[in-house]
């Protein structure tokens, strides 16, 4: 019942407005806690030394890049089945932050790689998959900006995201397979960024912080979109914006 009500911009707008300060506050707290854990409490790694601290940014960013895409796909599916317009607003709001997390994952992955592998880029399975995910995000954003009609943009975008999410496991599997195929057998490579239990706590705290940041950003973007789309409507004018 509550969700049906929230699907209308008229109710979602104030709801998001009330939610925002709490989410933002929690986000700042968890961010500071995570940074404290990651930079001060966690010891340097046996193998990776201080570069392990890059993991506290790289891994949550990579997790978020996939989480946001999954959220977008879920919203597209819900929007198609239940015909809720607000899901389009949500999906459009998610794309830039999702792409940003992907970009951060790639850059920090590269910065981690240089001291560990000696090169600025390696075509390992994880980084290559992240790169392709970035292409998927950018493609979606390019498609939406190329279409003027908002309705067509939303529906076309939804089809693209759903086709993308179905292909994602295939792409990921093929890249994994490709990577093992071309691995020089003799070289004992340092694996791509791996997760040890000792660094799990800062990782989870940072991941939570990033999630909360994602929610805040999306709420702000959705409120902006609602202001734009509903600027002529009664309820907004009565509210005085």
């Amino acid at each position, binding site marked *: 019942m509550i969700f049906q009500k929230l699907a209308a911009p008229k109710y979602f707008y104030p709801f998001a407005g009330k939610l925002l300060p709490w989410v933002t506050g929690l986000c700042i707290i968890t961010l500071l806690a995570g940074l404290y854990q990651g930079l001060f409490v966690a010891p340097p790694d046996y193998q990776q030394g201080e570069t392990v601290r890059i993991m506290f940014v790289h891994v949550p960013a990579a997790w978020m890049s996939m989480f946001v895409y999954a959220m977008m796909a879920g919203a597209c599916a819900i929007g198609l089945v239940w015909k809720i317009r607000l899901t389009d607003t949500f999906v459009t709001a998610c794309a830039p932050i999702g792409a940003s997390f992907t970009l951060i994952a790639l850059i920090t992955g590269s910065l981690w790689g240089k001291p560990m592998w000696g090169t600025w880029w390696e075509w390992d399975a994880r980084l290559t998959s992240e790169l*392709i995910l970035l*292409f*998927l995000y*950018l*493609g979606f954003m*390019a*498609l939406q900006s*190329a*279409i003027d009609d908002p*309705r*067509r943009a939303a*529906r*076309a975008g939804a*089809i*693209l995201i759903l*086709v*993308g999410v179905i*292909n994602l496991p*295939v*792409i990921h*599997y*093929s*890249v994994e*397979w*490709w990577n093992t*195929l071309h691995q020089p057998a003799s070289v004992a490579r340092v694996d791509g960024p791996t997760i040890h239990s000792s660094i799990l706590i800062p990782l989870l705290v940072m991941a939570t912080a990033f999630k909360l940041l994602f929610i805040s950003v999306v709420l702000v973007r959705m409120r902006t979109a609602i202001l734009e789309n509903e600027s002529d409507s009664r309820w907004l004018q009565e509210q005085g914006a």
Partner: protein
Amino acid sequence: MPANPTPGVFQAWLRVLQREMLLAYRQRNDILTPLIFFVIVVSLFPLGIGPEPKTLQLIAPGVIWVAALLATLLSLPRMFNNELHDGTLEQLLLSPQPVSVLISAKILAHWLTTGLPLVVISPVIALTFHMDNTALLYTVITLLLGSPVLSLIGAVGAALTLGLRGGGVLLALLVLPLYIPVLIFSTGAIIAASGGFPVDGQLSLLGAYLVIAVIFVPWVTNHALRVSLD
């Protein structure tokens, strides 16, 4: 005497196919251009990297396949754009026949005029790259299995980007990531076969991809076309 009885589904499908092939024949240039593009792109690599046979053998599977991807991309806008401007596309969507079936005929025609020529010319290209017989054989096989998938996935992209500015390049951006598994498994199969390794894994995956695409793409394309035309 009643007017023409509504044709059966297969007849309608056949008619669309015949019409597409006739139109393609009339616009022969549209078909030759991607093929020539394919040959030119492939030729650029020896020019850029050097004609050393060992090197060419090494890069051949990747080069041929990437060139095939790009040549297919070039030909994709043709699938729906022409009919967009004269209204036949809307007619197609209003047809009493199941539209997905008719769309599959269109995609088949696209493959016959784009992918199949690539398959036919690939042995020639393979020879110029000093590929051994096994590699050549598997180049043909993977192209045969994979090029229809390129046409199929491309159809979805073409339908989504119908009539948009920056169409061709945007289409490439949308579709190329989706082409990556086909690229990986095809080149992987060619390389494995050359080395004497088993390839049933890769070929089954390509085959599965093809089957799933044949089943789902016409339906998705139908929806994408309606979204673009509304």
